């Protein structure tokens, strides 16, 4: 955090819900009376490309892009993507990694391979990184689609935003009929 702005970088693969998560976080910041800006490049939802969403909130936010190495929190929806963006983490920043692996078809060329030692490299570079199996938790709760909300719950612990406001936003933005189960998922993630 520099000049009072909290920087959250959410990364993952197109289709995982990175942008929806950053929408929800931004809405929480807005409802908390903060200035907020977010920025990302669209279009990857079905195409399996890299998605990075910058969310910045505080008294007054200028640039919508987090300066290099100033991400207070990095939330990685996917393992290799968490490794790809690890250098953006600020001194003392929090790294939260979902252990899910999505292997891209470019590995078919034989020229590239998915990093087999990604978790080790993450832990070696950021010893305090939290690696969680959000799909495992979602399965426990009975629905793999709850991964995003679980991760947001986990993320919420690292941010100075009111739980009440989080729950308001989860309820409002959850797909029809899923408000209750998403609330449970959020609180479960927050409790881990």
């Amino acid at each position: 955090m520099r000049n009072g702005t909290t920087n959250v970088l959410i990364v993952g693969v197109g289709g995982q819900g990175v942008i929806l998560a950053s929408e929800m976080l931004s809405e929480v910041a807005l409802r908390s009376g903060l200035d907020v800006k977010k920025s990302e490049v669209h279009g990857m939802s079905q195409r399996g490309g890299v998605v990075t969403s910058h969310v910045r909130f505080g008294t007054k936010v200028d640039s919508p892009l987090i300066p290099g190495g100033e991400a207070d929190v990095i939330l990685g929806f996917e393992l290799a993507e968490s490794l790809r963006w690890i250098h953006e983490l600020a001194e003392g920043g929090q790294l939260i990694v979902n252990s899910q692996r999505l292997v891209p078809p470019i590995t078919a060329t034989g020229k590239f391979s998915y990093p087999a030692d990604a978790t080790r490299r993450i832990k070696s570079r950021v010893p305090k990184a939290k690696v969680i199996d959000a799909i495992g938790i979602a399965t426990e709760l009975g629905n793999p689609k709850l991964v995003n909300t679980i991760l947001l719950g986990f993320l919420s612990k690292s941010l100075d935003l009111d739980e009440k406001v989080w729950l308001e936003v989860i309820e409002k933005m959850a797909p029809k009929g899923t408000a209750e189960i998403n609330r449970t998922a959020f609180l479960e993630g927050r409790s881990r």
Partner: protein
Amino acid sequence: MEMLLSGNEALARGVYEYGGEFASAYPGTPSTEILQTIGRFFKDDVYAEWAINEKVALEVAVGASYGGARAIAAMKHVGVNVAADPLMSLTYTGVGAGLILVSADDPSLHSSQNEQDNRCYGKFASIPVLEPSDSQEAKDFVGAAFEISERFDTPVMLRLTTRISHSKGIVTIGERTTVEHGGFERNIEKYVMVPAHATKRHKVVIERLERLKEFAEESYLNTIEWNERKVGIVTGSIAYQHAKETLPTASILKLGLGYPLPMKKIADFASKVDRLFVVEELEPFYEEQIAAAGIAVEGKKYFSNYLELNVDRVREGFIEAGVLDASAKASTAAAEPEEVLPRPPVLCSGCPHRGMMIALRNAKVFTTGDIGCYTLGALPPLSQIDTCLCMGASIGHTFGIEKAGKTEKPVVALIGDSTFLHSGITSLASAVYNKTTSTYIIVDNRITAMTGGQDHPGTSRTLMGEKTHAVDLVQLCKALGVEHVRVVDPYDIEETTNALREEIAREAPSVIITNRPCMLFPKKIRQAPYAVDTAVCTACGACFRVGCPSISASDETNEKGRPKAQIDPTTCTGCTICAQVCPADAIGPLSSE
């Protein structure tokens, strides 16, 4: 009331709030959401349409403006190239009701063929260019633009960039107000640009520019934030935000009107600071004009014209200029990134274009390509596209290579339905007229897919959701003089490959059109998934080479340790392409047990 809106959403809201009545566009990142938002939320008050291309979008907006309706035409930066023909004479005729050309530029080419700086069009066409620096301004400047357009009888460019269009920020929204305008009236000296009239209008344009310069000096669009006087920064658009964050104590002259410049204001500002810098993305557009006015200024020397700016680059520039010292960077700013495999976007599971790519691979041809989802076929492992220049160029490229006569290997053109309607029809007509014998492939997935699934004149639906006439591509190609028009199923590799081979061999122009829709838009299409029988799979890798994201290496290997294949049943759409390329017959429908 406050909302979190993207620049595009805010601009759309601005069109509604400031009495806009007509909006036309062709989809193009990062501009697409402007018309989508108008069509979704404001269609009761603002007519919104997809035009067949940007030239038409601007021409119809001009018509609406001449006819008394406040109008906008929105497009990405390269779209303005297509609209440049009407633009360059429109500046002479002036407008009826206010007319805004929205240009959404793409510094860093996140999804484009180039990163051209469309502020240059403002100078070229002698029209004002407004540059919002956040979402609130993206909305407010619509009102300013309509007013300037009507007051000075000029089209106005409202210029965004990706980081304005696709960043969200807090916007205060308001009520709609409208301005009364009469309909079209005869005025041939203004509207008919024959040389006798146009000569007089050019004089009007020159004189109008002088009045706009005076306006710029006093306009609230340009503001000065006085602070320390060691450094003064002239900046605008998103660069303003980066500069402000980098040097919060510097004095800043923020340009909301990027052209024409308030040169007297700038000269006065320059005289009150020790060093004057320009922080702008891409071209030294402000800098060169300021230097030409004899004002000492520094800019491109420290802030390159290559790629988008951000706080890091602005900081680096000021460190190099001796304004900041190296401690200004976070200790982690230069941290080494980890080496991780690339993850380029790929064709979706079940995309019909994949079938055509495999058939093209089988036919062993050069493929001149075009702009759309099928462009992703250029990437490995498909690697099937050899050229991609601009909308519609594929057809001309194949024709030109054919006529150059020096290429042994056959060349075919590959173009999508929306692209073909946009600017392929004229190319095909020209090629047939000039006696081509080549083969031209239209991959018709019946939607403008790459930009998120918009309608076009071939889909039989308007932006506002009404049913309408659809162009018949087969009849169209025949009418252009192509006798051999074939329709193939791109999910049938053998049929498609045979069609390609036959038409390539034919000494007459041919068109091959595919007939499978996009499996995402307008609605998701999924058939029963397929699966790999690992007992039969030999791990040859043929299915990996179709580049489908549902196929990956399983943990099982063959006797040589090579991984066998597996298919994700939750994403497989059952298109059967992988089953068709499998030499071992190891892929078939997933059995329910």
